[in-house]
């Protein structure tokens, strides 16, 4: 990582770089962990209302989005494998596919949120005001948790776009693709968190 050129003894330490990335992912898990704790507390407090409110969510769109994210994790891995084998073109194609899938996820998410908004279900919305406290909290948790997750998807898109540029400029290549691996790790984390969000909001009713 050291860019000072005066000492050639600086060796690359891929293991160390990955270790740093794993530690960072650990902090991300704890960041979401705070929200999962809140979800747990409120689910115990308002279990009936949570059941009721969960029925409002669009299971079909949620399922499609889950499939999209899972597929994007696959294309991400394939991109890394491809560059490891020296096939730059294939790696680029898979990485572009990953980014497109991520954007597809965001579009569907946008439709989902948009539908809720148009029914007056948003913080301070007319319809939400008529619902019970437990349902208000359910939608509050829903918007906050999927919102923070969506923010991570967007950050992931930015990171992967940088990786794409690095790939095109050969800064990521067959012999040094630790950056792509680190970006991939981040992307899997985004995927992993959704794997937990999906059942908690869409399936438990």
């Amino acid at each position: 990582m050291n860019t000072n050129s005066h000492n050639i003894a600086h060796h690359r330490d891929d293991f160390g770089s990955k270790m740093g990335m794993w530690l960072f992912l650990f902090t991300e898990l704890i960041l979401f962990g705070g929200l999962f704790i809140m979800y747990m507390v409120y689910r115990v407090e308002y279990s009936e209302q949570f059941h009721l409110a969960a029925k409002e969510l669009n299971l079909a769109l949620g399922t499609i989005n889950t499939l999209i994210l899972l597929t994007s994790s696959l294309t991400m891995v394939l991109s890394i494998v491809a560059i490891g084998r020296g096939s730059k073109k294939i790696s680029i194609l898979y990485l572009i596919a990953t980014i497109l899938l991520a954007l597809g996820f965001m579009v569907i998410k946008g439709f989902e949120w948009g539908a809720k908004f148009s029914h007056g279900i948003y913080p301070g919305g007319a319809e939400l005001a008529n619902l019970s406290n437990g349902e208000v909290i359910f939608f509050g948790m829903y918007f906050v948790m999927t919102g923070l997750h969506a923010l991570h998807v967007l950050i992931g898109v930015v990171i992967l776009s940088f990786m794409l540029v690095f790939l095109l400029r050969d800064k990521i290549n067959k012999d040094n693709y630790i950056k792509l691996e680190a970006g991939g790790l981040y992307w899997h984390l985004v995927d992993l968190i959704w794997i937990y969000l999906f059942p908690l909001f869409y399936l438990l009713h």
Partner: protein
Amino acid sequence: MSNSVSTTIKSFYEYEGKHKGILGWILSTDHKRIGLLYLWSMVGFFLVGVFLGFLMRLEMLSMGPTIMGPQMYNAAFTLHGIIMIFLFIVPGIPAAFGNFLLPIMIGAEDVQFPRLNLLSWWLYVTGGLFAIVSLFLSGGPIDTGWTFYVPYSIRTSTQVILPLIAAFILGFSSILTGINFITTVHRMRAKGMTFFKLPLFVWALYATGWIQIIGTPVIGITILLVIVERVFSVGLFDPALGGDPILFQHLFWIYSHPAVYIMILPAMGVVSEIIPTFARKHIFGYKAIAFSSLAIAFIGTLVWGHHMFTSGMSDTARWVYSFLTYIVALPSAIKVFNWVATMYKGSIRMSAPFAFVMAFIVLFSIGGLTGLILGSVATNVHVHDTYFVVAHFHFVMFGGTGFIFFAALHYWFPKMFGKMYNEKIAMTAVGILTVGFLMLYFTMFILGYEGMPRRYYDYLPQFQFLHIFATVGSWVLISGLLLMFWNLLYALKKGSPAKANPWNGMTLEWMTSSPPPFENFNYHPEIKFGPYEYEHYDEAVKDEYK
């Protein structure tokens, strides 16, 4: 014995990198320059915090409004807390001294991620600026206290969002430093530097890194939620919409209790360096001290509930948290006993860093023992939210971490700046500081025990004398601080050149010139002996570093 090597090797100050002048500092990825950047910015913020504290004490000189009204006073203690905690004590020793010394102490040329390290400093400065800018924005200075408790922090009309964003950014900076240090300790140790040959300061930084990683994200999400509440009124902490404000307190203290260990552990590490050096003796119980750091790091994440004994918790939760609080006192006590045992039959050389450590042991022990009074439920209810808590907190944080920050500053000053300070003036400053400290904060124990609530700008007539006494103490304390800083600044300009190893230490930072060259060593360090094996001093230390 003057060191001939230091005159022939270019120090990192003289090294010319890509950038020149000020850019050579603020864009440098050299861990030593980043450490000094942190040091200077922190001393700046610290002085602002001191000034706010000074104003608060001045307000308490007499009953009724003396120099400010209640709203100003609320803002003053909030800012004092935010600045001292988020900008001084939390980053304090790790970011300034850890950055400068950790790579040198393990025989590395830099940290694992030097650019990330620079980013940490930039985030730190950005956070600090945000906090200051927020004072002049609509609504005026934040008045929630540094704890940002809901529902008040959601309802107050003062500027809350920007200081919260600042705290979030500072947390991010803290996390990046933690990740950097942990990876560096794992991956960059010199040949022969096994984990059990690491200096104890490195062990402490390592344990601190873990708390930073485990704890900080929780405050991150909590802060984000308060911002979301203020902007969108989602209701997650609002009882009117079904939310639970107590949940905020839990999340806040899940971070903020471990955070006090982020503040104190590195200080304990510094103490474990200074005592063997000046007692010229192997540290007593090396492994016990090393593992007690890890024990503090992990048990410390389980005791947050003791901040909430009066907030509404089940009795079971209260005694469990009380019990765990007693448990976490054990590793701290182990350290204190080991430090004292190290001095036993040592060959002690009295000097300013050692004097700070002596003051620390007394003040920190008082702070620690009064922590047990607060940790037991029955007495806690009596002194909760009084000056007793304020006194306890300042004994452990200022008498503990603050004093050791100054000890570290004196101990490593010759290494960092290559100059020696005036020892006599430094010792005088330690004396004045300690007297002022006790006058100011010990008085608060009595005030609190007698029922003076904290965070009030006014008081009842029976507290008058003690308040005046404490305020006078604050003046003594501040004159000690000014004398100390003046002495160091004078040394910076006019001090005599420092030797490579002025205290005859055995850890690696003394095995290179003062100040060290770029990338720290002009040879490849190889470690054969433990950091405090003074019986091998002649063998382990090269002649030019004796």
